[in-house]
C-alpha cells in the first residue's frame, strides 16, 4: 500500500474535482442574468473592433531585434564588469579586456551597419501620413 502513485493519483483527482465543483456549485447558487456585455472578450468597457489577427508594423521587430542585441550585451558585460579588477590582477589587462573589446566591436559594426541601412529610421506608412494630414 505504499505505492507513491496512489498519492499522485489522489492529487490529480482532487485537482480535477476542485474546479469542477466550483463551477458546479456557483452555477447552482448564482442568478442567471444574460446580457450582451457579458459575452465580450474583454469586459473592460471598451467595445472591441476588428479581429485579433492584425499585422504589426515590421519596424517594431527591427527595434526589438536591436534591443535583444543590447540586452545580451548588457547581460554579458554585467558579470564581466563585476570581476574585472580581480581578473586583471590575476591574468593581466590583455586577456581580460581584449575579448570584450572584440565582442563590442562586432556589435558596433553590426549596429553601425543597421543604422546606415535604416533600421532605426522610423518610416511612417502612407496611411499614417494621410491620417496626420487630416
Amino acid at each position, binding site marked *: 500500500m505504499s505505492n507513491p502513485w496512489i498519492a499522485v493519483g489522489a492529487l490529480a483527482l482532487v485537482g480535477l474535482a476542485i474546479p469542477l465543483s466550483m463551477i458546479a456549485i456557483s452555477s447552482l447558487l448564482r442568478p442567471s442574468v444574460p446580457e450582451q456585455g457579458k459575452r465580450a472578450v474583454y469586459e473592460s468597457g471598451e467595445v472591441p473592433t476588428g479581429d485579433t489577427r492584425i499585422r504589426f508594423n515590421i519596424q517594431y521587430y527591427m527595434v526589438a531585434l536591436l534591443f535583444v542585441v543590447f540586452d545580451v550585451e548588457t547581460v554579458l558585460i554585467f558579470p564581466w564588469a563585476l570581476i574585472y579588477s580581480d581578473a586583471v590582477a590575476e591574468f593581466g589587462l590583455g586577456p581580460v579586456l581584449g575579448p570584450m573589446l572584440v565582442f563590442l566591436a562586432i556589435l558596433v*559594426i553590426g549596429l*553601425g551597419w543597421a543604422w*546606415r*541601412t535604416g533600421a532605426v529610421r522610423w518610416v511612417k506608412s502612407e496611411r499614417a501620413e494621410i491620417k496626420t494630414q487630416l
Partner: protein
Amino acid sequence: MIAGGLALAPAGAFVLAALALFVIDAFSPGKTSGGVLAGVSAFGAVGALAASGVFLLSGAASGGIELFGGQLVVDGMSLLFTFIFGSVTALVAVASFDYVREMPHRAEYYMLILLAATGMSLMASANSLAVAFVSLELASLPSYALVAYLKGNRGSVEGGLKYFLIGALSSAILVYGISLVYASTGSLLLSDVADAAGEAAATYPGVFGTGVLMIIGGLAFKTASVPFHFWAPDAYEGAPAPVSAFLSSASKAAGFVLAFRILLVGFPIQSVVGAIDWVLVFQILAVLTMTIGNFAAATQERVKRMLAYSSIGHAGYVLIGLAALTGVGGASAGATVLGASMLHLLVYGFMNTGAFLFVALVEHWEIGRTFEDYNGLARQAPLACVAMTVFMFSLAGLPVGGGFVSKYYLFAGAVGAGVWWLALVGAINSALSLYYYSRVVKAMWIEEPIEGRTIAHYPTALYAAVLTAAVVTVFLLPGLVVFDGAAFDAAAALL
C-alpha cells in the same frame, strides 16, 4: 604545432570577411558594386581554404588543439571540413557574382553566406553540445534567409518558410535531446559526456537513449537524411541555385562533421550500446536515405529537383561511414570507412556544387527547368555541358571524376567492416542513379535542340566557377590521394 589563436584562422577568415562586408556596405548601403562584394567573399573563403589546407597537409594540428577550455577543438577532421566549406563558399561566391548582379540586397546575400560558413566551420570544431547547438543555429539562420532570398519568387519564399519551420522543429528536437543527455550525464562537454556515458546508459537508459536519438534526429535534419529530409527538395528547388549548391554541399557536410564529432567523441559506441545502438540507427537511416533519395530522384521531371533528391541519396552513402562502425575488422576498418565518408563529402563538395552552379547558369539564361528544356544544350554551350557531364558521371560514380574513387573507398570500406549488405544497397542505388544522371547527359548531347532558343551572353564568373569545379572533380580522380592520408588519419583519431 600552431598557437591556439592561429588555429582558428580558417574560421576567422570567414568572420573577418563577413565583418568587412558589413563595414563596406555601411558606406553606401545597397550600392556597393557586386565585384567588391563577391571579391571580398571569395577572398575570405579562399583564405579559409588556404589556411585549413596548409594546416591539414602540414599536419600542424594532427594531435588536435583544444581551445576555450575544450569548447572548441581544431584537428584533422575540422580542418578537412573547413577546407570543404572554404572551397564551396569560394565557388558559390564567384558564381553568385553573375547570379545576383541585378538583384537588391546583394551585400546581405554575401554576408549571410559568409556567416553561415562561419557557423559551419564552428560546427566542425564544436567540442561541446552547447557550442554545437549555437554554431548549428549560426549556420541555419542565415540559410533560412538565403533560401527565401528571391523575395518576389513564390517557390523561394515558400521553400524558405518550410525550411525555417522544419528547421525550428528540428532544433527543438535537438536541443531537447541535448537537455536529456545533459540530465543523464551532467555535462555538455563531449569528453565529459563520453566519460559519463557508460554510467548514464546503464542507470538511465531511457533518458539517455531518448536524448541520443533526438540529437541524431536533429543532426539528420541538417544532413537531409530520411525521414528528416522533407524540407530539402522544396528548399533546394525554391532557393536560388547558388544557395542550393551551398546548402546541399557545405551545409550537409557541416551536419555530417557535427554528427561524426558528437557520436564518436561524445557517445562512444562501446559505452552506450547497451542503451542505444546508434550504429543500427544509422544503418536504418542509411538504407532509407539511399533508397528513397535515389528512387524519388529517378521520377523527377525538373533537373534541380532531381539534384535535390540525388543530394539526399548521397547523404545516404555518407551515412555508411557511421553505419559501418560495427567494430568488425578492427579500428583500421572503421577508420577506412569513416575516412571514405569524409573523402566523399570532399569530392561531393565540388561535383555537387558544380552541378547546382550549372543549374544556376541555366536559370541565369532563363531557358527552363525540366529535362526537356536542356535538350541539345551542348550545341550552344559545349564547354559548360562537358563540365555538367563530368559532374553527372562523377556523381553516378563513373571513373571520370573523384566520385568514383570516394565511392569505391566507401563501398570497399563497408565490405571491409563486415556490412557488405550496405555496400550492396549502395551499389544498387548507384546503378539506379546512373539512370537519372544520364538523362541529363542524354538531353544535353543527344536530343535535338529546341527551336528558337538563343543564349545571349555567357557569364564569365559563373563559367569560371563551373569549370573550376569540373577541373577539380576530374583532378580528384587521381588526386584524391593527396587527401586520403589526412582523411584516414582524421578518422582514426576519432575512433
